[in-house]
């Protein structure tokens, strides 16, 4: 059932068995897995069933360091959470993302990817995806094949596209009708109360914007409010542990990660990529599920070059740009000219170059199994999405300014280092090298804005991760391999805040997989 917390009597105490804070992808997934289990579940959601600006304003905060989006823009604070505006791209993290890599400090998960595979498979159903199979061959057709790269440095990969599943809409009825689940809307956690030793959560202090106050007690508590808010809730709960709950080793809020998305080189094709790059520009369908192709560096290349993980989209940059309805990827002719200028490139010179390479690369067409037609001189662009190296100075902290509930707001400091810059430059060089080797065309170098040292147009991807990272050693992580806060026996954390590394891939599928895993674990504990 759904209950409006604004109607609760003052000082109501809600007692339950498992309390989930946050009804986004993680919270709804866990609640759904606990339907019909022989114990009570309480799901707490700050917002209502739709967007309310006063609730949304609770997400405001400061940003320092790398420019970032307003914190109340990138997150949605109502039932369904940020799935109410996610774009649906799904793929598991790569195997290498789980490895401890010597060249990447603080890398490594407590388990390999293979451990998560069964949970990824179950997550596919919730995200309304196809089979758990990411072989690009399933999506390529004769008209839209995979680019046949020579050698093994660059490969084509696929992500599947969820419709996208709006968790709050798709699973609302199930949650509402579940006999053992009570969902409280407009219910905000303002403090996590603990024992004197701060080793167990005793209650959640709750409030509504209308001024009601009530509390929740439970056997187990799960924070599922997203990377920024999970950290915030721990940091504000500092009556016993003055650095914040679970923060004995000053890790809560640190290692904030976000995928840097950035323009890379322009691609001048020497063959008719426009007519045969559809797998990359618009995607293909397999079993009714859309998959979009992109380029990735192989794990061997990443290890040899000591790079972060990265992927490159191939985007048509012609006036006939194929609009995908997502922000930032459709580009008008004017924007193309601006894009070229921002890369310090001369369109006229590129035209001469096109005439040159068409003559020399034509001989390579025989290695490419598609027919060749004269290219119209159309540019494509490479657009990169990079892994963010774990960086303890990239973090969420509290500031004195308070929100309407009286809670300190957050400040986000987003920092990058040389490894991200080197990864972008080197990935672009390698792809340029492999495109030339395969006779596909020529790639321009990444052009950095001299004022920032980064390409103009670089930005975040609206993915927040890492602020309560997972590690079996309490001195290196906030939560253990099960998602339990190390020092607090009955407190768990769900969602991307537990990611020790980010990979390059959108986090939602991994969030859902980890949430299913946590739900199974809590079910075991409840026995």
């Amino acid at each position: 059932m759904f209950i409006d917390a604004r109607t609760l009597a003052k000082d109501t105490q809600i007692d339950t068995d498992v309390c989930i804070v946050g009804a986004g992808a993680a919270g709804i997934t866990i609640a759904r897995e606990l339907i019909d289990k022989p114990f009570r579940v309480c799901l707490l959601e700050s917002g209502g069933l739709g967007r309310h600006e006063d609730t949304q304003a609770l997400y405001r905060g400061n940003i320092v360091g790398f420019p970032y989006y307003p914190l109340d823009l990138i997150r949605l604070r109502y039932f369904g959470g940020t799935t109410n505006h996610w774009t649906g791209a799904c793929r598991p993290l790569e195997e290498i993302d789980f490895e401890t890599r010597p060249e990447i400090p603080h890398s490594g998960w407590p388990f390999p990817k293979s451990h998560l595979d069964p949970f990824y498979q179950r997550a596919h159903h919730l995200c309304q995806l196809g089979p758990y199979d990411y072989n690009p061959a399933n999506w390529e057709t004769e008209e839209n094949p995979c680019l046949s790269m020579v050698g093994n440095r660059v490969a084509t990969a696929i992500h599947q596209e969820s419709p996208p599943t709006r968790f709050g809409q798709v699973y609302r009825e199930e949650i509402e009708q579940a006999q053992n689940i009570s969902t409280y809307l407009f219910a905000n956690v303002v403090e996590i109360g603990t024992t004197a030793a701060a080793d167990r959560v005793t209650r959640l202090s709750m409030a509504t914007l209308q001024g009601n106050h009530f509390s929740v007690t439970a056997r187990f508590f799960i924070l599922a409010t997203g990377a920024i808010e999970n950290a915030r809730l721990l940091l504000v709960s500092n009556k016993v542990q003055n650095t914040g709950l679970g923060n004995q080793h000053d890790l809560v809020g640190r290692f904030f990660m976000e995928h840097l998305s950035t323009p890379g080189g322009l691609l001048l094709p020497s063959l008719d990529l426009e007519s045969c790059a559809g797998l990359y520009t618009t995607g293909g369908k397999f079993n009714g599920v859309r998959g979009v192709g992109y380029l990735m560096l192989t794990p061997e290349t990443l290890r040899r070059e000591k790079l972060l993980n990265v992927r490159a989209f191939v985007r048509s940059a012609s006036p006939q740009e194929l609009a995908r309805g997502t922000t930032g990827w459709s580009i008008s002719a004017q924007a193309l000219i601006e894009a070229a200028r921002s890369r310090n490139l001369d369109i006229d010179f590129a035209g001469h170059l096109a005439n040159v390479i068409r003559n020399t690369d034509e001989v390579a067409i025989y290695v490419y199994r598609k027919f060749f037609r004269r290219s119209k001189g159309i540019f494509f662009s490479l657009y990169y999405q990079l892994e963010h190296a774990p960086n303890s100075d990239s973090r969420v902290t509290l500031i004195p300014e308070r929100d309407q509930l009286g809670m300190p707001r957050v400040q986000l400091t987003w920092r990058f280092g040389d490894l991200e810059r080197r990864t972008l430059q080197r990935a672009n060089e390698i792809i340029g090298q492999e495109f030339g080797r395969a006779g596909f065309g020529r790639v321009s170098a990444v052009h950095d804005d001299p004022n920032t040292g980064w390409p103009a147009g670089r930005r975040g991807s609206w993915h927040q991760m890492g602020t309560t990272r997972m590690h079996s050693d309490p001195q290196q992580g906030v939560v253990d391999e099960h998602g339990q806060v190390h020092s607090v026996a009955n407190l768990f954390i769900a969602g991307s805040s537990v990611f020790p590394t980010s990979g390059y891939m959108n986090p939602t599928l991994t969030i859902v997989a980890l949430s299913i895993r946590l739900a199974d674990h809590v079910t075991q504990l409840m026995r």
Partner: protein
Amino acid sequence: MQTTRRNCLNLMLGSSIGALTYPVLTWLRDSGTSTPLVAILANFFPDKGSAKAVGVEYLRSHPVESDAELLVDRIFAGNAQRRVEFIEAGAAARRTRLGKLIREDFEHGRMVQVRGWMLSQTEARLCAIAVLV
């Protein structure tokens, strides 16, 4: 003299006397004349204007290579056999060979940046020859 040598070369190319071709061509090369090869490479691109536009930019950042003979030598890595085979080949085969050299450049990381574009050393040098001749 040069014309005479070119005529002689053409005669050899048109001849099916393969046994004589190599020694004669070797003599031509060793006589300090890569001119036939320079001439062939200078006219390799149908759109010479575009080749020159690229070549000018390459030479701007690589002025020490402003010598057609030097460029030819570097394209063929001083390999006399490759030079002879190239001269003997027909137009299509020459295109194939150069294409192969270009792809090998990319395979081995022999790349240069010309006005921000990552090119093969060979193709940049071919464009430079178009400027110099």
